[in-house]
């Protein structure tokens, strides 16, 4: 049960990327994606590849973990490739029955697939090397200028970290409830659609009851510790930049400049 969900899974290690400030990594992901989508020729993709490979090596995360994250979007990529391959009008290279593969279609399909794979891998590296709490801290800090516009940045960040914190707890709980009901003869993978939907009731009712109870308890515990939102709230571990973070930013500036230059010049 637990193995199936890899989204936002943190991989424990002590690499340069793991120690890097989450703000750099968030900005980096955005810049990387921008550079990736600016690429219009071989050089552009080469640049993205070099950056991606370097980052993968630096992250010290086994490639196995990154590929695991790819499984979930394999279908999406397949569909994208399929439609681009057959639906793009242009010079026909090969045709089977009513389906025609065109030169333009082939080009778009390949670049689309590369972009999608690179996109997911790039953002996977961020989530694999950054703890969920680090991510929300970074996001809060990056978005804090919006506070001037009275956007509830802190509240949203707090909700995000609570939600993330609760995922493993609720997964665990789901597992326990499933087992408790299976011990009473419940079966979750049997019968037609309606029967299956019905069989979820004994799972969902205890899960919701427990989620609400936990939410209530947590709210009470936070209030008991005088939590009252973002105003004047300090952090236990405030984010601060170090040398490697400045180096990171410098690399990102080089990346985006190179991407723009390639786009304009080649």
């Amino acid at each position, binding site marked *: 049960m637990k193995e199936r969900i890899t989204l936002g899974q943190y991989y424990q290690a002590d690499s340069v990327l793991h120690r890097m400030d989450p703000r750099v990594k968030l900005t980096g992901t955005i810049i990387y994606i921008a550079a990736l989508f600016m690429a219009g020729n071989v050089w552009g993709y080469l640049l993205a590849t070099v950056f991606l490979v370097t980052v993968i090596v630096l992250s010290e995360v086994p490639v196995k973990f990154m590929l695991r994250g790819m499984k979930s979007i394999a279908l999406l990529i397949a569909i994208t490739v399929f439609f681009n391959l057959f639906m793009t009008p242009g010079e026909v290279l090969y045709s089977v029955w009513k389906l025609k593969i065109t030169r333009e279609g082939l080009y778009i399909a390949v670049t689309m697939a590369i972009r999608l794979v690179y996109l997911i891998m790039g953002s996977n590296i961020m989530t694999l090397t950054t703890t969920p709490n680090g991510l929300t801290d970074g996001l809060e800090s990056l978005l804090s200028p919006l506070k001037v516009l009275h956007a509830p940045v802190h509240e949203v960040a707090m909700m995000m970290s609570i939600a993330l914190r609760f995922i493993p707890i609720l997964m665990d*709980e789901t597992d*326990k*409830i499933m*087992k*408790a*009901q*299976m*011990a*009473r*003869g*419940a*079966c979750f993978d049997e019968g037609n659609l309606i029967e299956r939907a019905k069989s979820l*009731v*004994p799972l969902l*009712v*205890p899960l919701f*009851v*427990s989620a609400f*109870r936990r939410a209530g308890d947590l709210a009470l515990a936070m209030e008991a510790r005088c939590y009252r939102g973002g105003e004047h709230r300090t952090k236990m571990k405030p984010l601060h930049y170090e040398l490697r973070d400045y180096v990171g930013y410098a690399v990102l500036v080089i990346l985006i400049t190179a991407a723009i230059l390639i786009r304009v010049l080649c």
Partner: protein
Amino acid sequence: MSLEFKDVSYIYDADSNIPVNALKDINLEIKEGVFYALIGHTGSGKSTLVQHMNGLMSPTRGEVLYNGVPVRDKDMNLRELRSKVGLVFQYPEHQLFEVSVYDDVCFGPKNMKLPPEEIKKRAEDALRLTGVDESLWKLSPFELSGGQKRRVAIAGVLAMQPEILILDEPTAGLDPGGRDEILKQIKLLHESRRITIVLVSHSMEDVARFVDRIIVMNKGCIEYNDTPANVFRHVEELEEMGLSAPMVTYVMRKLRSLGLPVKDDVITVSEAADEIEQALRP
């Protein structure tokens, strides 16, 4: 009825970089009509062991045999097995979901596809056996107190009329009064129906008073499988495993070391009282 473990090992996360060996070559036979206690420190493998008994988990190596048939055999009907080997988990909140107490207890028998009269009979029977008052039957299970929820959860499993009843910490989180009531009810059940019971527990006092045999687990192995008096003789070893003997055993050992001629394998308060009386009588 027979339930047997043959060289059972179970490894969590076998393919990760930190595999956990939760069970190591377990050999065990659960005999009919015996009241067992399963004790061990947190993480000793108790929960993993009991989940192997009804096929919720299957061994990495070795076999669990129910009436001689391996639990993971293709011919094994898991639903039937789970109705014969009833497992009640620690938190009743994990299983109560119906609109009323009565309906919730019917869930197990309904899954067994029994006729309605039989379901009704079994549910009422189970509720009476666990001492749930008839005035509570139509209430929502969420309105009950902790102790009552516990009873309803046990009734929910008992309604399937299992041959073995496994209870995972049925007294955790209850006050002493509620704890005693539940344990007495379980003991009564064992005596009136001769049903085999496996009680997972932390409390040495409870275990000493009620059970026939104690299975002690430590780091995935079975250290002892013996009568309470024999198990609690190994006080030092038990303490090393993060367990203890009943309070009264310590008292008797101390008295003995102070020179009072009492036996030191006494495990219940009433036994101790008799023993001390004997020793003091001129």
